[in-house]
């Protein structure tokens, strides 16, 4: 009797331990948003929302100081768009290759390669970009190499594994009957895949693209090493010119910032965080919609 009681007691105690451990993630999300906002929002209020988000003047050490991050927001959008333009077609094609064309022997090489690509640290991508991509762009395309283009190329490579693995599994999930229907109508294998299978897998592909955007927007170290990081006035932003993004703004100035300057960098993080939350929300929306269909 005693031992049964004791084990019941243990069961209840451990159940609450399990629950509390599960709740740690919730606490972490609350703490991260709370402290980020507590430090960031007052800074935005002090600078003025319009002067912060919609001004391109960034000069925290000038007198009078200015704290506009519009060109960093635009910069983040440009490099992310560039990454999508480069990464999505290649990634999607590679996913089609893995799911539909790849002989088994080759699959055993390509699939682990994709996983390995996901495991390479961003610092390695950044260093590779600095040593190979930047000189390549400088010598063959123009500018000094540290540019939106170089950052887009590196980010495009970095989002490949995300795009490939998620698209591949959603392509594989398309029912065989769709393909048979298309073959029955006389379509070739390629026509079937690109006109029937890929469109049928579109919610998975969209998920992959959004996760890719999230990765590209949030990437810091790889971008800081190839983008040149100069703050550009909006009308001077160009493909072959240097660029500063939201993430690299934080990492380039934090080490010597203090006071409102430091808070404005945290506020830059708040803007980034809001971007990510919006992306996450749209992901849940896609999940919700596709589960309803």
């Amino acid at each position, binding site marked *: 009797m005693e031992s049964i009681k004791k084990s019941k007691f243990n069961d209840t105690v451990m159940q609450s331990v399990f629950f509390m451990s599960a709740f740690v*993630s919730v606490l972490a999300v609350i703490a991260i948003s709370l402290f980020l906002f507590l430090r960031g929002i007052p800074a935005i209020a002090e600078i003025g929302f319009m002067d912060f988000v919609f001004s391109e003047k960034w000069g925290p050490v000038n007198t009078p100081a200015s704290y506009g991050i519009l060109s960093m927001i635009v910069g983040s959008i440009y490099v992310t768009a560039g990454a999508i333009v480069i990464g999505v077609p290649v990634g999607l094609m590679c996913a089609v290759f893995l799911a539909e064309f*790849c002989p088994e022997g080759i699959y055993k090489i390509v699939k682990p390669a994709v996983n390995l690509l996901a495991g390479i640290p961003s610092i390695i991508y950044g260093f590779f970009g600095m040593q190979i991509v930047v000189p390549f762009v400088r010598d063959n395309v123009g500018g000094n190499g540290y540019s939106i283009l170089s950052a887009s190329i590196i980010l495009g490579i970095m989002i490949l594994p995300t795009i490939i693995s998620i698209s591949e599994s959603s392509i594989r999930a398309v029912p065989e009957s769709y393909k048979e229907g298309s073959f029955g109508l006389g379509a070739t294998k390629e026509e079937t895949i690109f006109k029937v299978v890929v469109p049928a897998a579109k919610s998975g592909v969209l998920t992959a693209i959004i996760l890719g955007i999230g990765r590209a927007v949030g990437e*810091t170290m790889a971008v800081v090493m190839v983008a040149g990081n100069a703050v550009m006035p909006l009308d001077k932003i160009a493909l072959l010119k240097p660029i500063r993004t939201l993430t690299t703004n934080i990492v380039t100035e934090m080490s010597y910032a203090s006071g409102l300057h430091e808070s404005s960098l945290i506020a830059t993080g708040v803007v980034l965080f809001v971007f990510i939350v919006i992306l996450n929300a749209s992901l849940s929306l896609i999940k919700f919609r596709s589960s309803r269909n």
Partner: protein
Amino acid sequence: MENTALEKSVLNKRKTKSLILRFMVWLCGILTVGILAYILLFILVRGIPNINMEFLFGEYNSDSLSAFSSIVTTVEMIVISLIIAVPVGVFCAIYLHEYAKRGNKAVKVIRLAVDTLAGIPSIVYGLFGMIFFVNILGLRASVLSGVLTISIMILPVIISSSEEAIKSVPDMYREGSLGLGATRLRTVFSIVLPTAMPGILSGVILAIGRIVGETAALIFTSGTNVLENPTLDLMASQRTLAIHMYMLASEGLPYSKDMAFATGAILIIIVFIVNFAATKLAGRIGGLSNGK
């Protein structure tokens, strides 16, 4: 007659188009592997010749740029963050899969939180760690601040792979154990967890990979400082291997660039081992659930 000629030309066009598509698909597959191979070979070929005993185990100074104390810090950080994050993550997975009732509101909230944590960029973790651990808790820039920050960061990886592994344990096993009179807790610890262990371990290994490669979250929490000789002092500000590489790469001197290659080669070798081990282990749960 004319009609069939038209049909033929349409068919030929379609065939050419299909051929081009097939070529593109193969090209992109090869391109992906090619890029990976290029990056790996580029770093390894230029890095490995620069790895020597002095670099691996020597004292750090401006001549040697030795990675020894960064290696020690990296290992220290891995061990302590795993001690913190693995129990929390595995317990969370146990709660989600073994204890929570279906349609439970708390489960939805927890899942949403885990997904959110997985999507937060590392620089935001770095900012949070700087605000909370370094400043508010007063831990200063130290290995401890870095460890705490990175423990939160690796939680989602551990939770999702543990949950995946626990899910793959056949219900039969649980029913057998419960039928013999074991409590739910006993069933979890003596039946479910041992069966799910390879999958959990593969998540742990992936987490190690993340810790080893992390830079942005650590730069403002554990800092970029480097000591001549390694210390295990948790309150010391110490750089990890990845930050060592970043610092060397941004110095821009030819010698420091060589050493950045060497550090990169070490990182890649670690990532290689980590990926290989994780895949091998994850493959093993598949075998188990096929009824062995």
